[in-house]
């Protein structure tokens, strides 16, 4: 089965979605072995929202964590789903990709959460938080 799943897209949208697909697969090539790529969200039917010179693609990619590992973590052999929105700037000859990716979801799928915050200020009462913050970050205490 093909990794690339979008079908029946019109020409301009299809070209953009294909470019985003190439960018995602290539960008994650050292980390995830690709299983599937598809578009989703409000622009899924046309594939992309076009507003020259920009295009917006909401996508979902699934791959196996069998590469070099994320951020020095050992590869886990888990199936990882990566979701993102890419804004493509088509004005330069080499298109530019602004990627907004749900990395928190990737981290939690890898089992990487620690479940504890760290702070220089031990706030025992919620009411004190603004005072401590204003003092620590040197700004006027907000109302």
């Amino acid at each position, binding site marked *: 089965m093909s990794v690339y799943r979008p079908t029946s897209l019109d020409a301009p949208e299809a070209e953009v979605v294909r470019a985003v697909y190439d960018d995602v697969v290539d960008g994650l090539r050292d980390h995830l072995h690709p299983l599937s790529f598809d578009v989703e969200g409000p622009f899924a039917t046309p594939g992309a929202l076009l507003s020259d010179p920009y295009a917006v693609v909401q996508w979902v990619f699934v791959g196996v964590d069998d590469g070099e590992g994320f951020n020095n973590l050992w590869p886990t052999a888990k199936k990882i789903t990566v979701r993102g929105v890419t804004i493509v700037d088509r004005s330069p000859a080499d298109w530019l*990709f602004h990627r907004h*990716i749900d990395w928190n979801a990737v981290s939690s799928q890898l089992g990487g959460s620690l479940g504890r915050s760290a702070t220089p200020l031990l706030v025992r009462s919620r009411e004190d938080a603004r005072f401590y913050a204003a003092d620590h970050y040197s700004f006027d205490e907000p109302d």
Partner: protein
Amino acid sequence: MPGMPYHLEKGGWLSVLEDYLNGAPGRSAQVLALLRNPSVPVSDTGFLQSPALDKDPDYETEPKRVGHLRSDWFGWTGTGVLPARRQDPFLKQVKARVGAKAFATAAGKTSLTERDARKVHRVLDALAAETTTLRNWPITGFWVQYFGDVEEIVRQTLVRTIEVSLGLEHGEKIPRSGPRRTLPIELFWKCPQRWFEGWVTWRWDESHGTGQVTTLLATPGSGKPVLQNPLDGKDAFRPTTWTTDELVRAPIGPPPSVGARSWRGAPKGMWVVTHEHHLEMPDLPDHHPTTTGSWAIPEFGPTYVGLGDVVCVQPSEADGGTTPFGREYVPPRRSSAPSRPRRSRSSSRDGSKGAPR
């Protein structure tokens, strides 16, 4: 210490180090002298030279073991198996990554030293907002999203451990008559947490001359995964007894200490050895546009940097530490046997209301 797939580890390396410190009279004192000399690398204090570690399939030779400890734990660099250069300070590494010009722009006219944690944070905040090339902060060795002087923390932790074991004040020379006591030392490695700490804890029963120093190296993750199911570990099993049928030499510990019973050693203790300051690095935006396929995977969660001196701190009991004598158990004034519950006249055993008897 390559890392095991559990949250708590002793493993071959710490087992050998324990035996090295406990197994022969006077040896921990010799190691203490080496550790107190900052020009002696922690990797060169003796235990890694033991052929007892040759069984480790990944680090079966001394150079490999020394190289692993220096590079993966302490962040040393260099070519070949044996790194020979200690890690550069954090700000120097940041400057090398972003370039002197970008660094100078963020720093302005500020004279920056790593001792001034707040000033460092302000400058790095400005740098993170402006730079489009810095996608990850420098880290030490294989520790995930942590930078610090790990070698100094390990050194100070072991120094404190041996000093407590031998009944010495910090920096005190060993008396000519010999140490006041020699408590056995137990070592563990616990991970993950956000930054690197050494925990030195002890018990000392003066009336019997017995006790123990238990030290934990509490560290960030090394990248090695933790097994979700404890029985999936290599040769893991459910023990039914704590005894063994193996006939091999048991680890040798020091004999019960003897001597004056009027000495003022605290019977309990709990210290943490770590950097004086820990800075949470500013978030590095990862949405700056690049051409196709040019990705940089961002950090997952915060990166912490240890700055300033390595200090030894005694937390209060209220914050989870212990007082020198702990808190004595006091039995309840009344009998601790559970009292017979009084049954309501309007309720029955199964909770339903019934007619009073």
